[in-house]
């Protein structure tokens, strides 16, 4: 009379992704506003690694990846690429009431969204967003969720769902550090961890049709978190007047001697 269900333990992963202007864009400030002309908007390059590792781990252990973004209602590029790479679902937190958020407020909202989605074993982030170059949101989100965080992962050594542990290698200043943590965990990555896959043809078709699930702050059960940090001023960098001096000479040896003199004269050694 008893039905015994063998439930396979699957890995649940969430990849946090952000839309940014392409890394090759010419970005400038015009009339106090940041512009990048007609440069495309793309998935933040560092987040490609977050998506890739989440996919690799769910492929190895079974399970799905949800791509999560906080952004304006019409922001779709990051989510579209994430779906095209293989994420199952795309979730966007968006709210007309929401102005600019600092990293700490972004983390509050992402943490609330992750809870709303029922949490995950693996929550992946990019090392930093190439627009604000902060590199703090992952750690902040992990702290708010009360779970461990391992930044700058260069290799996932093992992930074990029976013991709920993960072992990774991290790239730090003077080498590699092997660290073990319990799941659920937040991770960020350096480039060496993997080569992000290109979206497949099927993936791109799927992405074109994919529905993005929108969540408002009210649906997350939170009010707008306070932002403490703000950009009081944004400017083009001062034009460094560089006069390039081409060092010449009759032979490589002569050029080298002339260049060596110039380097010594700069008194930088």
């Amino acid at each position, binding site marked *: 009379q008893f039905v015994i269900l063998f439930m396979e333990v699957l890995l649940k992963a969430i990849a946090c992704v952000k839309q940014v202007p392409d*890394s*090759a864009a*010419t*970005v400038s400030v015009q009339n106090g506003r940041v512009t990048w002309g007609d440069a495309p908007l793309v998935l933040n*390059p*560092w987040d490609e690694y977050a998506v890739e590792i989440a996919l690799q781990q769910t492929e190895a252990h079974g399970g799905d990846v949800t791509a999560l973004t906080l952004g304006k209602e019409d922001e779709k590029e990051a989510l579209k690429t994430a779906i095209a790479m293989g994420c199952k679902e795309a979730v966007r937190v968006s709210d007309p009431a929401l102005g600019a958020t600092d*990293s*700490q407020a972004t983390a509050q909202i992402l943490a609330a969204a992750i809870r709303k989605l029922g949490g995950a074993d693996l929550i992946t982030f990019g090392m930093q967003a*190439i627009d*604000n*170059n*902060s*590199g*703090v949101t*992952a*750690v*902040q989100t992990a*702290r*708010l969720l009360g779970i461990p*965080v391992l930044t700058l992962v260069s290799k996932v050594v093992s992930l074990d769902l029976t013991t709920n542990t993960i*072992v990774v*290698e991290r*790239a*730090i*200043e*003077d*080498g*590699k*550090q*092997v*660290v*073990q*943590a*319990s799941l659920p965990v937040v991770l960020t990555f*350096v*480039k*060496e961890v993997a080569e992000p896959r290109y979206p497949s043809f099927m993936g791109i078709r799927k992405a074109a049709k994919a529905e993005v699930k929108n969540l408002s702050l009210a649906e997350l059960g939170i009010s707008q978190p306070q932002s*403490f*940090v*703000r*950009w*009081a*001023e944004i*400017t083009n*960098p001062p034009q460094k007047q*560089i006069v*390039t*001096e*081409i*060092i010449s000479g009759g032979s*490589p*040896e002569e*050029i*080298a*001697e002339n*260049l*060596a003199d110039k380097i010594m004269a*700069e008194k*930088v*050694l």
Partner: protein
Amino acid sequence: MTNKIWVYLDQFKGKVSPASWEAIGAATQLSKEFGGGITALVFGKGVEEIAQEAITFGATEVLLAEDDTLNDFRPEPYSSLLAKLAAEQQPEVILLPDTTRGRDLAAMVSIDLKTGVIPDVIALEVSAGEITATRAVYSGKLISKVKCTARPYIITLRLRTFSKPESDDGRKGVITRVNIAVAEENIPSKVKEYIRGEGSVSLTEANVIVAGGRGMVNRPTLTPPAEIKGDKEVDKWRTQQGFKLISELAETLGGAAGASRAVVDPGYVAYEHQIGQTGKVVSPNLYIACGISGAIQHLAGMRSSKVIVAINRDANAPIFQSARFGVVGDLFDILPPLNAAMRKRLGK
């Protein structure tokens, strides 16, 4: 009386990161505006010497925590301890060097203290007790001035940007030992092992960087030994010959060797050498770019270097626009005599 300006001193295996002293330098400037002395924080195991040295650099007080749980940096116990001390003593500012550890700690403690964090700052100004921090954003394409409405300010300082103060053995200060905040069983991670990198000087701390790009592949007259076969293997071998020249000059100059992504992606040079948007961001006094075209993503990692030298065969390579000195020539021809010329001048 407690000090308003705190400085977290980063260390790895008991060795202080030089950027910690730069942070004391920045703190000294701030303390002129805020008044009072400087409190340095030293967490670790076997790190008392760092606490003493901090006083010679200008700290008037050091809070020293030594424990097994603090032996390897982990953000959770470090953050809990820093947050506990800051909650008790209410500093206005906590400065940290922007090392991997400093960045993680700053991010986490900002949550514990319910304040903002301003990472990778390149300049600080104070007016009427309010700090304005300058940061590079959009990979250095723009500059933003940042303010924070909550206290304390949590600020990480870009390495090699603030000057290190002179040390003076005559300076006096008090070292106070403090207890840990979290027991081992409540820390969710364990450091199991450490594998040392191959380079002896870390790129982000190097005073001089010599970097090589795809130009290293391009020396058709270099003939590989017979056992090296296939285009890719030959390219790799040629790159390694070029990288040897790069590394030799770097060593002569007491610096580190860097590379562009073009030689890292195919696996010719290890990723730890990559400079740029998806590699390391560096600002040495001297950056010598060899066989590197100067793509915007490479510039993102090195444009704040003080003096840039470019060696490139193509007189129209964009890298020359950022360079103080340029040589239009083949890196394989220029590097050996340049190394000899520098050795001579440096008495090596």
